[in-house]
């Protein structure tokens, strides 16, 4: 019932004949609503991660020494810093992609989206290849896989720091991975010509989503790496 019907004889780009869904009065209302919905969703994302931040804050207050030592021992700020840089660049490129849609430059959208996705994949590769896999090899997974006795403080609190590190970064990583697929979908839609100055709602919401993923990392990075 989404009622997008395009005349077969129409030679215009699809975005120029965009028809809003039938329950909206006009496409502007629909666009505003989509944006409002997206902002609400961003709020839920922030609140969801606030659970991790809160747990982190409580235990950092309880065990400040462990937090300092575990961060130095387990995490390399250079890897985290590189990943931060990569995500900040990707935030810029996705904004450029939206600009491309406003300017009706199809290839500008496409290349910027591609750059964003390359950054996202770089982030994941660095995260997994330089952090997760060495950690798993060193027995630094939480729970049954954790090898006790060689941590910085030698107490169970090392384990607690790693516990929060794993769940927070893995949940964030999952968001990055979802972002890769959504941006990939945007690239397909770009090549179909569905984004233009009058219709870039989906692209803009993807950008908003990507920014929250970025912002959450910008909080996670100093919390975990720069204690």
């Amino acid at each position, binding site marked *: *019932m989404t009622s997008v019907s395009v005349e077969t004889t129409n030679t215009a780009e699809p975005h120029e004949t965009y028809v809003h869904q039938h*329950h909206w009065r006009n496409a502007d209302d629909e666009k505003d*609503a989509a944006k409002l919905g997206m902002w609400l969703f961003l*709020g839920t994302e922030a609140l969801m991660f*606030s659970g991790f931040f809160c747990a982190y804050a409580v235990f950092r207050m309880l065990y400040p020494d462990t937090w300092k030592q575990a961060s130095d021992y387990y995490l390399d700020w250079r890897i985290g810093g590189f990943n931060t840089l990569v995500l900040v660049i990707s935030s810029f490129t996705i904004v450029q992609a939206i600009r491309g849609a406003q300017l009706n430059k199809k290839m500008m959208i496409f290349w910027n989206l591609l750059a964003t996705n390359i950054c996202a994949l770089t982030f994941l590769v660095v995260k997994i290849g330089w952090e997760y896999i060495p950690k798993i090899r060193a027995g630094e997974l*939480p729970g049954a896989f954790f090898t006790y006795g060689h941590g910085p403080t030698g107490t169970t609190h090392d384990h607690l720091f790693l*516990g929060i590190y794993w769940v927070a970064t893995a949940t964030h990583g999952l968001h990055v991975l979802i972002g890769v697929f959504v941006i990939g979908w945007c690239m397909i839609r770009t090549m179909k010509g569905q984004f233009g100055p009058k219709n870039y709602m989906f692209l803009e919401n993807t950008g908003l989503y990507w920014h929250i993923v970025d912002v959450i990392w910008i909080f996670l990075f100093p919390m975990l790496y720069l204690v």
Partner: protein
Amino acid sequence: MSGDHDASFLKPIGDFGDGGVFSAQWWRGFRTEVWRWATTLDHKKIGLMYLCAVLFAFFLGGVVALMLRMELFYPTMIVDVTDAAGNVVLNDAGEKITKTTGELFPGWTSSKGPVTSNNFYNRLFSLHGALMVFLFIIPAVPAAFGNIFIPLMIGAKDVAFPRLNLMSWYIYLFGGTFAVYSLLMGGVETGWTFYTPYSTSTQWGSVTSMVLGAFILGFSSILTGMNFIVTVHKLRAPGMGWFDMPLFVWASYATSIIQVLATPVLAITLLMLIFERTFRIGVFDPALGGDPVLFQHFFWFYSHPAVYIMIVPAFGIVSELIAVHCHKRLFGYKAIAFSSISIASVSFLIWGHHMFTAESPAANVVFSALTFLVAIPTAIKVFNWIATMYKASVTWNTPMLYAMSFLFNFSIGGLTGPPHAVLSTDIHLHDTYFVVAHFHYVMMGGSVIAVLGALHHWWPKFTGKMYNDKPARWMALLVFIGFNVTFFTQFFLGTQGMPRRYATYVPEFTTLNQISTMGSWVLAIGLFGHLLIFVQSLVSGRKAPPNPWGGLTLEWYTDAPPVEHNFAHEPVLTHGPYDYDLVVPPGWDPADYPLPDPELVRKAHGH
């Protein structure tokens, strides 16, 4: 988009051509119709599917509640100790060993082996809580009635994001599947609150899948809330400002805000609980330096606002019931509207009152003081409703009886709240039946009664059939009596010190417990009676007029049941939702419905 704008959205049900039941043609029609419902984007159909699902969950939870009350009919009993095979165990001297227990369901086995009855009781009350909270009462009003009526009441064709709406329905089903799965795999015995460290250390049952179910159901709730906020902001009919919205919409809006802001915190809490159980990350495990009380903080940061997800939409329903069936402008419209919002705001500040025995005294004082705040907007609502009824021409039909029932029960439930907020009395009442009685008066006596009122109020609108009002009134009375007999006794039990969540009790409590259990039977008869009346209405009910009660809100302006796109023409609002002193309700003939005195109503309208 068949172009068939005059067709009712419910029209094709059961009518699949001339081939007769179970012919090939009938099956073809049946399959098409099932597929059409399964993929529908129509908010009314999605809402109806939600309604069926939540009522089914209510039925299951209700059966479990009756079993709980059966178990508590007798106090402790002396029974022989048996081994796993059911043989009587003898001691060294060859005598039978006896134990004291409240066994009414002894010898039940699950997939994980035989269960003692205490264990079984633990699983039953956990199941009752989880079913009623996560599957019934949280989605009942927002997802079921909200879905059907918010777009109708604001004059929209649909909710803002119809596909998201369908998605949240399937997420609900998916989460519900997990809950049913964990029930079949042995259930949980942690209570619906999943308190750590018990929930992270118990090897019994299927806590992980139950928690995962609640986690998934949370997403359904978040998406529904987002959808309604945007709908209310962006899809109001021309001419409808914020203060022209019906109060049900206001209440649903406040509820949606709570859903969107609180549920993500539950999601992350349950996710950490799942990680804790599967990977032992240690956040809630004291052995690793974690803090189990942190779980309580996280959990109640969601679950206290969730209490208002359950009750605030019920306030909205009662506002509608009282205005429509009193045929009178609501007293203090803005006060009621803002009190919903202020309840939503205050709800985020008072989670600590669930933890008076588990947190620092300084925090207790703050949370205690803040808790009293919530009584203010709640009392504002109650006083306004009563003021509305003053000198009104009240129609004493079933929905109005339920509104009255709500006022009575909810006032008791509300006024037994402050004793919990007072630290000194709370230490005495903590974890007793007084607490059980208090929240059942609010949740059941408030929300469920309001849901029943809403069912009767809007039944003609969404089914297109009238029900038989006279027996329904009797059943409403039975429900009222049964409910109060069941739960009022529990206030006495609680003040006398009977703790909650035990399968047994000392013999002194026998009389009160037996009265309470008998009350639950009366309640069950009343609810079952309602079911029969509704079935009779669906089978042979009189066709409902579009506006049987004389309502002024926009849902009464369309057909019963509504046409596929809600309104034949986009409605333009020319009057407020409760302007009974200025406007004659549309399409309303008092003769449509046996009012006590139609002349009186006409006079009240100044005609």
